[in-house]
């Protein structure tokens, strides 16, 4: 006897299409135009910061930098839906999300400029720093969520990762735990179609990445990752469910990486300019600007004023970053353990003495 014992469905949500037209009803929060303008401004700031970071890298004043151009809606929509007491765990391409969470521009510049103070967030004290080994933050998110659940808190963890991360064992293991222990965690996949040079079609035979959650026993859905209204809405609903004991959710935000993987990559070596140009027509900022403009909520002067404001804010941050001196060499030792064991006192002294000989950095 053979019978069907399980089937699955994966939904795809879009509210604002690439032409800036509504394809679904506006959720309650989006009926407040001020809120939408807030989201739009955040995306514009993220992109302006991105451009500045690339330029700093090109002039040797910032290290390797992963641009998030084209993916602003995933980051802004996700972070904007979070509460202050939730915890955010980024991969490394979530600048817009971190800005909303309260990680300052200076902190972000310090991190990419190679200074540990960039991860000592003055704002979101429990948010995690970047997770460079891909997908290794998925278990952290599950652990953070478990802590929240054990304490009976109305908080949730949000873990943002790329499509490439979904092939990693750590991620599968974490989803399994999130499902079987019904953890208050929302996993958001920033599916930008490219894992460095590996296209989505070569990443997995699964029709959607969202359905991997279903295999782990919790719901997975897709959302138009270039539609900040839809991203906010699905993340908001998932967070409310998680915080009230409803368990985990996987949200696959379908977007496109309009930039190179990082400044150390040249994507033209493996993808065509035509492909990228075509995708620009779907990008998140233009469609939102169109919608706001056509709703008479945004004018040319507002745009000019916003861009000027972003430039001013970013330039001030860059000045502060460039003026920040590197940490002294003893700082390599002073955060190794709660108290530096006597076993390393001699090395610490030698490091200080050595840099004295080399002179000022």
């Amino acid at each position, binding site marked *: 006897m053979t019978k069907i014992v399980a089937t699955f469905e994966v939904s795809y949500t879009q509210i604002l299409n690439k032409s800036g037209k509504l394809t679904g009803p506006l959720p309650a929060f989006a009926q407040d135009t001020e809120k939408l303008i807030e989201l739009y401004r955040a995306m514009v700031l993220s992109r302006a910061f991105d451009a500045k970071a690339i330029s700093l890298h090109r002039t040797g004043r910032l290290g390797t930098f992963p641009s998030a151009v084209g993916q602003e809606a995933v980051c802004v929509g996700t972070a904007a839906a979070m509460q202050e007491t939730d915890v955010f765990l980024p991969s490394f391409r979530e600048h817009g999300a971190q800005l909303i969470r309260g990680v300052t521009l200076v902190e972000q510049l310090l991190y990419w400029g190679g200074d540990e103070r960039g*991860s000592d967030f003055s704002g979101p004290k429990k948010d995690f720093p970047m997770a460079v080994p891909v997908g290794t933050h998925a278990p952290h998110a*599950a652990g953070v969520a478990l802590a929240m659940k054990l304490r009976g808190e109305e908080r949730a963890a949000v873990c943002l990762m790329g499509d490439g991360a979904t092939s990693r064992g*750590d991620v599968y293991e974490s989803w399994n735990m999130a499902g079987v222990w019904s953890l208050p965690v929302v996993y958001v996949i920033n599916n930008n179609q490219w894992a460095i040079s590996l296209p989505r079609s070569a990443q997995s035979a699964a029709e959607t990445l969202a359905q991997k959650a279903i295999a782990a026993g919790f719901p997975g859905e897709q959302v138009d990752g270039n539609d900040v209204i839809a991203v906010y809405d699905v993340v908001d609903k998932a967070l409310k469910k998680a915080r009230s004991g409803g368990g985990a959710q996987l949200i696959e935000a379908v977007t496109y990486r309009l930039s190179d993987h990082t400044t150390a990559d040249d994507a033209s070596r493996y993808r065509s300019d035509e492909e990228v140009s075509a995708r620009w027509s779907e990008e998140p900022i233009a469609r939102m600007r169109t919608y706001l403009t056509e709703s008479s909520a945004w004018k040319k002067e507002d745009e000019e004023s916003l861009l000027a404001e972003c430039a001013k804010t970013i330039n001030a941050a860059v000045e502060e970053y460039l003026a920040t001196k590197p940490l002294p060499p003893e700082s390599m030792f002073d955060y190794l353990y709660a108290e530096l064991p006597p076993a390393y006192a001699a090395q610490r002294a030698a490091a200080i003495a050595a840099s004295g000989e080399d002179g000022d950095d």
Partner: protein
Amino acid sequence: MFRATDGLVDRFGKERVLDTPLAEGVLAGMSVGLAAEGFRPVPEIQFMGFIYPALEQMVSHASRLRNRTRGRLTCPMVLRAPYGGGIHAPEHHSESTEAMFAHIPGLRVVIPSSPRRAYGLLLSAIRDPDPVVFLEPKRIYRAVREDFDDDGEGMPLDSCFIQREGTDITLVSWGAMMHETLAAADQLAEQGTRAEVIDVATLRPLDMDTILASVEKTGRCVIVHEAVLSNGVGAEIAARIGEDGLLSLLAPVGRVGGYDTIMPLARLEARYMPSTERVVAAARRALEFE
């Protein structure tokens, strides 16, 4: 596996003692998340042979969390695993790869050699604000019995223990090999040699002060570990004695370790494990060196 956690769930409840699906990577990674949120997780790996999926989380995250956030987030976790051979176990169940973890800044690596030290060191490890890899020599889980009070007294981390005082040669070891090392000291005593026996206990950070003070007194040293000889922690100790205690030495520093081979299966295990005889022989070489 060895029933070290027997009865814990009855005493502390299901919210503090958790059975997990079998995935060492996420076990260690979730512990990082729990620790960052203020818990003190004590994840248990069934055998050191299965610890390697957890290695990435320990090296890439647990060891670095305090440093990379300038102390904003910290990782007070204790990763426990039975380690070492000598119980005729199946393949992969007899690993002694403590050197892998001992190489990592930001971790502590602690190995008890007796029930009292297992109790005291584990208490201190759990109370410590930083990550600890706590390796329990499985061979002596049952072989050694010791009575003591459940008094909540921790024992010091980052510190060697002098198990026996002596004047003629320093024998340095840790874990289950303390048994062979003390037996070798007994044989040497019958031959008129008084050996000082040191239990290192914490492999990182290493307490070289105690070892160097002993070598200054005795002039001779043999390091004994079950782990593979080459690139084992004995090499670090020998190098440091050479750097900081050369003028005390009357003989080269000797090392007794596992052969540079894959640990054989049960039938040859006894031929692989460093024996009391090999320790005595190494000590005699040091004592008779000219």
